[in-house]
């Protein structure tokens, strides 16, 4: 397959960004199932689909464009209130997102499979068919709003919908008139908007009917809020705003009844949420505005404080919030007429398996379920990004450019010095000259270090990037596994080198999958064991000095170390003698051996026995280690320790048998000089006595099968990770150096004990030792010999 062209690569990069934002919003909507969907979010997703459609069309990506078109249509209907956001719709949207990811992956690879095309077209079709006509009220609430007809005619469909909703909920409507000077009206208007946002919803901004004077311009903002007038006034103090209330005629009896029926029905209505969450304001522009000056109102965050309008729906909300979910989504496809009546309450929110829902196996659901099964049968795509781009704060880049500027100054000074030395000819270099040169060189060193740090920083991305992708995956796995899980994420803002974050996605996926499949028990079993029905799976990142620790834990059944031992014995991974010697911790660590798996059924999701040793290997390539803690009945936790950055590391250059190797300094605890006679043997193991403690000891030459040279003394590099310590004997110490490590390519992955190579300047690559692997090997060796 030919790699995509540059233009296509750009398309993939942009599309990935759009999908990421879309995924985030969908996730929030999903978490808040049962509650009213934030119109801002729905609008945000609508805009994302719209952009994606345009982008795909521009690049000739037919399949993506078609699917985006279908999604956009559905979302348009949603945001205009023509469709209710129920389970089926949400699920379909999430499936559509998966389909987009798959399509994009194929584009990035330059392939196009028929299977995926059919899946995408099938999805687009389903999106089109989804729809539930909303309850028709007898009287349009908008009629009751006393607003100039001229003004009303100017609204877009979306604005009308928002207006209608607000009136129906009984929110007070205001006209906020403000006049600004022509020179700075944009700032004034932005300021006014900022003040208004926390107080309610700005539905529309219109040029005012009354002019703002000769040098001014005035705007009317239609605003809905539930705060009292004094509060509103105090919030707007300092702005040139004038408030005028918009009267709303009381509803007639019939419309009131309809109103009551509407709030009683379990259909979810799009309304503003009472949750003060604040995603970054997207920079979307307002929907195509027909006329007049309009501010990009919809682009901001809504922080409305509206509780749900009627008390009745409040009490019902808690109970029936999900009862709407209780409606099998599939019904909506066949049931066009009226909203089905509420079913019994079902367990709510977050991630939920089918155990808590009404049975969803109805024939119209077949295409839905079929697609679901099909997607799980497809190979699980990797969570790695399709692009190799990093977003960098422009401030950081400016900082780097400044540093380069300073470097140029130093270069100029050095040039001057060189020039003066050349011109003075045979005149011996004066001491002054030497001092000046030394000073410039020191300055150069400082600036280069700062530049290096700055560039490394630019490569850092927050781990949250990968965590968010995992959250979506967890939702799907949980559903498929029939469990009930609360997925908790913490420390997403911790930053790691982009390369490391990318490499982490697959190992983390493995671990989480294992946790959900095998760690967490089914809801009934948990109840029987006296545990809460919903399990907690948590993913946390924490920075500890030069390292980052990521913890994947669950409060499930824990790992049964006796069964681990049994399996290891059966598969011949350890002998009985060894098994006797092993402590609990060592037994648990057996799960990282290749070919180990205690899963009874080999589901396609996991349990193939390839999981944990691959995870460990992948982590080793990143100079990271993995540790496991578990207690039967209580839960399991995996700790991954990773260096913050791989790109440039400080290394100790050592010599063994006339070969040169580099040891990452961050794993080195100390260096000792040892005479051969100081090496003791204890139970046939070589050890050293260091300050009263026994240190296990290996000779690197022996470990690597290199010819041993007799030396008068060894240098012992003591390395340690977590609790373990090991002394590695080398012949020479060549010093310390900052090196750029390159990972060994695909073919060289299997080499043990080596994590990469670097160039020390004489063109011959120097291998970088994988301390974690050596540590383990050295210790295992000792154990086996004993």
């Amino acid at each position, binding site marked *: 397959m030919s790699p995509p062209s540059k233009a296509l690569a750009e398309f993939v990069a942009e599309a990935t960004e759009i999908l990421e934002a879309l995924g985030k919003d969908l996730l929030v909507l999903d978490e808040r199932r049962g509650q009213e969907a934030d119109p801002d979010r729905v609008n945000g997703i609508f805009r994302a689909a719209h952009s994606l459609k345009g982008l795909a069309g521009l690049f000739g990506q037919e399949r993506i464009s078609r699917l985006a078109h279908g999604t956009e249509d559905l979302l348009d209907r949603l945001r205009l209130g023509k469709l209710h956001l129920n389970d089926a719709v949400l699920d379909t949207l999430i499936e559509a997102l998966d389909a987009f990811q798959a399509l994009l992956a194929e584009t990035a690879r330059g392939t196009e499979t028929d299977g995926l095309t059919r899946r995408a077209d099938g999805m687009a079709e389903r999106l089109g068919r989804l729809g539930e006509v909303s309850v028709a009220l007898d009287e349009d609430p908008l009629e009751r709003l006393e607003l100039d007809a001229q003004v009303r005619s100017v609204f877009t469909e979306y604005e009308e919908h928002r207006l209608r909703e607000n009136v129906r909920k009984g929110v007070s409507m205001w006209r906020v008139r403000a006049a600004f000077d022509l020179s700075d009206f944009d700032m004034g208007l932005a300021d006014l908007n900022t003040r208004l946002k926390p107080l309610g919803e700005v539905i529309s901004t219109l040029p005012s009917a009354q002019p703002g004077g000769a040098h001014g311009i005035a705007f009317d903002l239609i605003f809905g809020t539930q705060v009292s007038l004094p509060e509103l006034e105090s919030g707007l103090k300092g702005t040139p705003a004038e408030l005028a209330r918009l009267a709303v005629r009381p509803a007639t009896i019939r419309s009131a009844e309809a109103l009551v029926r509407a709030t009683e029905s379990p259909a979810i209505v799009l309304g503003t949420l009472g949750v003060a969450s604040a995603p970054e304001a997207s920079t979307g522009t307002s929907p195509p505005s027909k006329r007049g000056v309009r501010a990009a109102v919809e682009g901001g965050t809504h922080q409305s404080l509206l509780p749900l309008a009627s008390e009745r729906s409040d009490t019902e909300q808690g109970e029936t919030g999900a009862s709407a979910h209780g409606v099998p989504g599939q019904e909506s496809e066949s049931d066009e007429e009226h909203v089905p009546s509420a079913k019994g309450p079902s367990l709510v929110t977050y991630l939920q398996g089918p155990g808590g829902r009404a049975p969803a196996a109805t024939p119209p659901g077949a295409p839905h379920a079929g697609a679901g099964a099909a997607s799980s049968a497809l190979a699980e795509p990797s969570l790695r990004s399709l692009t190799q781009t990093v977003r960098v704060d422009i401030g950081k880049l400016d900082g780097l450019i400044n540093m380069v500027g300073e470097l140029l100054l130093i270069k100029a000074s050095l040039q001057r010095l060189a020039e003066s030395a050349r011109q003075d000819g045979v005149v011996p270099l004066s001491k002054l000259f030497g001092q000046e040169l030394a000073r410039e060189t020191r300055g150069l060193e400082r600036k280069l270090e700062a530049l290096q740090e700055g560039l490394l920083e630019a490569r850092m991305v927050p781990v949250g990037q990968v965590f968010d992708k995992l959250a979506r995956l967890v939702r799907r796995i949980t559903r498929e596994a029939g469990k009930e899980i609360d997925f908790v994420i913490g420390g997403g803002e911790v930053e790691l080198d982009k390369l490391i974050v990318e490499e982490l996605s697959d190992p983390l996926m493995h671990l989480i999958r294992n946790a959900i499949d095998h760690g967490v028990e089914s809801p009934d079993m948990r109840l029987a064991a006296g545990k809460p029905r919903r399990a907690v799976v948590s993913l946390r990142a924490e920075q500890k000095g030069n390292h980052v620790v990521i913890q994947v834990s669950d409060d499930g059944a824990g790992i049964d170390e006796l069964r681990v031992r049994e399996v290891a014995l059966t598969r011949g991974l350890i002998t009985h003698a060894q098994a006797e010697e092993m402590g609990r911790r060592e037994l648990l660590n057996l799960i990282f051996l290749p070919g180990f798996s205690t899963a009874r059924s080999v589901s396609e999701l996991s349990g193939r026995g390839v999981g944990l040793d691959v995870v460990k290997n992948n982590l080793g390539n990143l100079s990271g280690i993995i540790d496991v803690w578990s207690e039967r009945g209580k839960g399991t936790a995996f700790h991954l320790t990773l260096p913050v950055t791989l790109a440039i590391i400080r290394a100790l250059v050592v010599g063994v048998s006339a070969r040169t190797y580099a040891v990452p300094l961050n794993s080195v605890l100390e260096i000792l000089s040892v005479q051969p006679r100081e090496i003791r043997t204890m139970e046939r193991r070589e050890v050293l006595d260091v300050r009263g403690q026994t240190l296990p000891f290996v000779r690197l030459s022996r470990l690597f099968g290199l010819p041993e040279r007799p030396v008068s003394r060894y240098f012992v590099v003591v390395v340690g990770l977590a609790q373990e310590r090991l002394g590695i004997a080398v012949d020479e110490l060549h010093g310390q150096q900052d090196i750029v490590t*390159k990972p060994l390519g695909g073919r060289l992955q299997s080499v043990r004990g080596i994590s990469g190579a670097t160039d020390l300047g004489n*063109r*011959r*690559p120097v291998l970088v030792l994988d301390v974690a692997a050596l540590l383990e090997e050295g210790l295992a060796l000792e154990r086996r010999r004993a």
Partner: protein
Amino acid sequence: MSRFAELLDDFFFRPDEDVSGLQDFAAGSDGVASAAPEEVPEEYLSFRLEGEAYAVPIRAVREISKVPPLTEIPRAEPHLLGVMNLRGELLPAYDIKVRLGLAERAPLVAGPDAPVPPRDARILVLRTETGPAGVWVDTVSGVVKLKPSMLEPPPPGLRRGDKDCVVGIGRRGPSLYILLDPEQALAP
């Protein structure tokens, strides 16, 4: 052979000699190369290992480089000679002589005890499924065009080693080239 016989030999062409050009000339074509439509010649890069002529499709060769300093890798597979730094890229360098039955063990080319590589030795950087990989060759002979009609399947006795790296024989005039499949030659 007597001098006269030699001359006669040169004068008359042998059955296996490539004389398509001559035939065209005789048939009175107007100089346009009249290869039959399916007879598009493929280019191969030919090189020598222990004096024997081998060839791989030129598309599989990314570049040819002089032998750079190689770093040996401890506890690696015996046919992995070492790793090299090619303009910042780390590439493995392999030996295929053992696999082809031309040598008992891989040559010592890396590490402190290794001799200076011979002047003509080169590293062929080949494109493979798992990324680029270098192969040690004794000397590179050049590019040779082989038409499909010049290709033959490998004779059964020629299968040396346990991998099917030999995919055929190319015959061009008096020269014989053993055609290799890079993927198989470098398979672990």
